[in-house]
């Protein structure tokens, strides 16, 4: 996957925005799809859930069962077990932890229920029929690469680069940070200050405020998540510190509006429509259809979504797809 933000066209990376003419949307065999995801405790996950539901609503032949969002792997496992007992036709699973759900997903596959793995990857290739991944590492790389560009553009000699991460104990946060760090390394830069919030507005404000105290001057700030970014922005406003280039993550509509206004430099997209894509693919898989734009007869095994950077230049392209958080 190319992580070069320059030559990305948004439409190509979005199967939800599939404008291809096909008969795939025509009603087919009635299918029951089970969906389970983490607790919708912040904007992006909330958007994931609602996008999944509205995707299902579009098809009269889909009955969607949504399990209680949870951050407890054990509970999520039992939800999948319940789906298996229930003999649903397909399962769309955004695991709290990919590895932890692998066993039960394999069980589902063995029971003949195709599993569509969304966002956080299983540890075994046999656990999913199809995997749709947001690219967390790629997201960090995109942000880091963009930061490098800024350093070059603005000719910053010894820039202070700061990072506000999400929940630090999640592997996805680690992936993002790793990507960021490695991309920065390529242009000889490193992260000077790093704090971790927990994806909520409140934690963003809190960690943001503390970070601003820790670093009297910041040149580039990457914040992993636009939802917590609302809080970070409030902290910047409060301290009246707008000297830095503020880069966001996820790509909420709110962030994009701020980019338009010039209050934010950029945001790295992390599609909130993955689960919606998952539902669509699950329906196709369950009905034995393929993706019409592909020559392939069947739905592919693995789709990695891109993590493009949205800036003032291309924001208008992306705004319609952005999620309200």
């Amino acid at each position, binding site marked *: 996957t190319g992580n070069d933000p320059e030559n990305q066209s948004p439409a190509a990376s979005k199967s939800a925005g599939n404008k291809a003419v096909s008969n795939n949307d025509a009603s087919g065999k009635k299918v029951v799809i089970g969906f389970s995801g983490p607790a919708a405790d912040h904007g992006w996950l909330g958007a994931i859930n609602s996008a999944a539901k509205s995707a299902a609503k579009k098809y009269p032949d889909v009955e969607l069962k949504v399990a209680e969002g949870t951050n407890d792997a*054990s509970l999520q496992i039992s939800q999948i*077990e*319940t789906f298996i007992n229930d003999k649903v036709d397909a399962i769309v699973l955004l695991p709290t932890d990919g590895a932890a759900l692998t066993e039960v997903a394999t069980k589902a596959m063995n029971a003949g229920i195709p599993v569509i793995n969304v966002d956080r990857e299983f540890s075994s290739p046999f656990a999913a029929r199809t995997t749709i991944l947001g690219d967390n590492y790629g997201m960090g790389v995109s942000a880091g690469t963009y930061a490098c560009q800024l350093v070059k553009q603005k000719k910053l000699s010894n820039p202070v680069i700061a990072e506000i991460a999400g929940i630090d104990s999640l592997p996805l946060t680690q992936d993002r940070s790793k990507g960021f760090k490695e991309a920065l390394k390529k242009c000889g830069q490193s992260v000077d200050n790093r704090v971790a919030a927990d994806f909520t507005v409140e934690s963003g404000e809190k960690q943001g405020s503390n970070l601003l105290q820790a670093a009297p001057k910041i040149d580039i700030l990457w914040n992993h998540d636009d939802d917590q970014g609302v809080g970070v922005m409030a902290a910047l406003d409060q301290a009246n510190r707008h000297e830095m280039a503020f880069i966001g993550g996820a790509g909420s509509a709110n962030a994009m509006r701020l980019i338009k206004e010039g209050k934010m430099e950029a945001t790295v997209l992390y599609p909130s429509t993955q689960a919606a894509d998952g539902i669509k693919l699950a329906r196709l898989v369950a009905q034995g259809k393929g993706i019409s734009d592909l020559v392939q007869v069947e739905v592919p095994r693995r789709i990695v979504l891109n993590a493009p950077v949205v800036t003032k230049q291309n924001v208008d392209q992306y705004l319609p797809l952005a999620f309200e958080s």
Partner: protein
Amino acid sequence: MSFDLTKTKTETPTAGDAGTAIAPDGQAAHRGGGLVGFLSGPAGRNLGLVVALLLLVIVGILTGGERFASMDNALTILRLGSVIGVVSVGMTFVIAGEGIDLSVGAIVALCSVWATTIATQTMAADYHWSVMVFVALAVGAGCGLVNGVLIAYGRIAPFIATLAMLAAARGLAEIIAKRRTQIIRERGFIDFFGGSVAGVPVLVIMFAAVAAAGWVLLNRTTFGRRTLAIGGNPEAARLAGIRVQRHTMYLYILLGLACGIAAVMLMARTTTGTSTHGTLYELDAIAAVVIGGTLLSGGRATLVGTVLGVLIFTTLTNVFTLNNLDTSTQAVAKGAIIVAAVLLQQRVARTGST
């Protein structure tokens, strides 16, 4: 000119002191009322829980039909309840001894991470997977020991000491795991704990065994007696020659051990060890224990109640999932159902004890 005083109140004499952790009505009644027997336990409280659970099951059958009433689904509920159930059994002892432990979830996480790290790093060198199990149990007991020493000998309030442990154990788990999910590839381990005996999952058997052992320990041994005496009146226990400090320490070690067992079960269930395991187990376990009828103020405990409490919460989640309720609505419904269950239980206890 006489006046009728006979308007009976159904209330206990301590009617006024609500808002405290004092026993609800009916607690004053005798034990072993005979009729309702085992399940009614202290003052028919458990009977109320059984009724609440039955109502839930009925709702499940009405709304879920066969999908709910199947053997498979029952096992799913039991398997889900088993991990938190083991922790709750241990928690019952600590609460019975007038303590509390907020660190259980973090200890489960630490045990799982420590054990799997040992496994992934050294198991290649031909260790048997039982080493992993042993490490999980030892780490759990060790954390419990630290809690126990701080509380019993350091005289730190249990809430504070275990809050500190909560932070520290999770932090340590993250450091050890380097915030990565450790994947267990030992088939022997997964097959053993993930398997079934005569159709019953090993996890469920483990839960049943722990609950039964806990019941015996609480109700049929001197250890249980001492626990209740310490929870009921620590000063009296001390003056009767009981080593209150040492016993208190044992209680936390016991709970730590339960966390270790739970960690093994969770590792088998998820085939992973990670620092995010056991999130919010403290709330779930305390809730199950308290709704089961064990007093937070100590001195009165029922293990049957705890098990029923666990089953009620787990069944609730299952019924919700089958009914496709959205998460927010589930939360609201859950709140309402908890309140309803407790009120129901009080009512049953009251009528049951007269």
